[in-house]
């Protein structure tokens, strides 16, 4: 009796987790489509990578029926995602920044030209910035 109630609780909890996870996954994808420039889209993709993925994985963990090996594997996937997804995002952002892609800043989303201010000493910012503009401004 107790176990049954527990089971149905777990069932509904995982249902909720799946629903919320799906919502956040779609939110992330929609943000990826709607946001105005690369740097803002990055944040939207972060929504999918963190909360969306984690909620769906937690839902799967609840559905794993106490199978410890399954839970361990799901936790390993979650941990792996937690380590790699910010690094991927950071690397893309860093490459865009170094490559001279300028972010839209401020409330009016106006184009800035601050991009590669990090290495005046090391390389030629003009060349990089020109290259980035050429790549970024096709549309």
């Amino acid at each position, binding site marked *: 009796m107790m176990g049954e109630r527990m089971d149905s609780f777990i069932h509904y909890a995982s249902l909720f987790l799946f629903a919320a996870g799906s919502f956040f996954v779609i939110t992330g994808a929609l943000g990826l489509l709607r946001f105005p420039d690369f740097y803002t889209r990055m*944040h939207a993709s972060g929504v999918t990578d963190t909360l969306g993925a984690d909620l769906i994985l937690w839902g799967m963990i609840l559905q794993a029926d106490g199978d410890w090996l399954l839970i361990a594997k799901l936790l*390993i996937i979650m941990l792996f995602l937690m380590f790699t997804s910010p690094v991927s995002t950071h690397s893309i952002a860093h490459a865009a920044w170094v490559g001279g892609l300028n972010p839209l*800043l401020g409330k009016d989303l106006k184009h800035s030209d601050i991009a590669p201010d990090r290495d005046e000493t090391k390389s030629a910012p003009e060349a990089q910035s020109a290259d980035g503009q050429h790549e970024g401004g096709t549309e």
Partner: protein
Amino acid sequence: MVKFLISIAGRFIVLSLALMVIWLLLSGYFDKTTLLVFGVFSALLCAWLTLHMGILDDDSVPLSVMPGIFFYWLWLFIEIGKSNFIVAMQVWSPKMSLSPQMIRVKAHQISDSGKATYANSITLTPGTVSVDLLGEDILIHALTEDLADVSAIEDMGRKVCRVESTMHPNLKTKAKEGGGA
């Protein structure tokens, strides 16, 4: 020198044991002798290769961070949830009110892994992405003005520092060595 060797050996042993645990979790066959033997062999081989590639240091086996980091992760999960809601609201609102900002914060962490943890935590909370980590400076792109909250981000940095400083006392010396290089 002896101390150095002991620390290497300790890391080697801890890494091998951790890999063995991962093997058991992945494999799930606790009773097949051949697989257990292969597991021991594999864990030792991987640990040896890590040593051979020259990356068996405090970043690859962060012994010292271990107890504190779990509480930090719990806190981080809550933060991730909170900032996710803010970004999700921006996505679904018909008229987006974005005001992206670029801000700089200082990473006061001593070790590389501490700095990387801090930068990764910033990236993991949606709405702020660490674009660049150069020396002690982290350049952050934030989605809105509310999210570009320097004091909150620095608070996160202090938490990472605290996790880090509960670890070993010889970090200071390591920082001095690393500073010259």
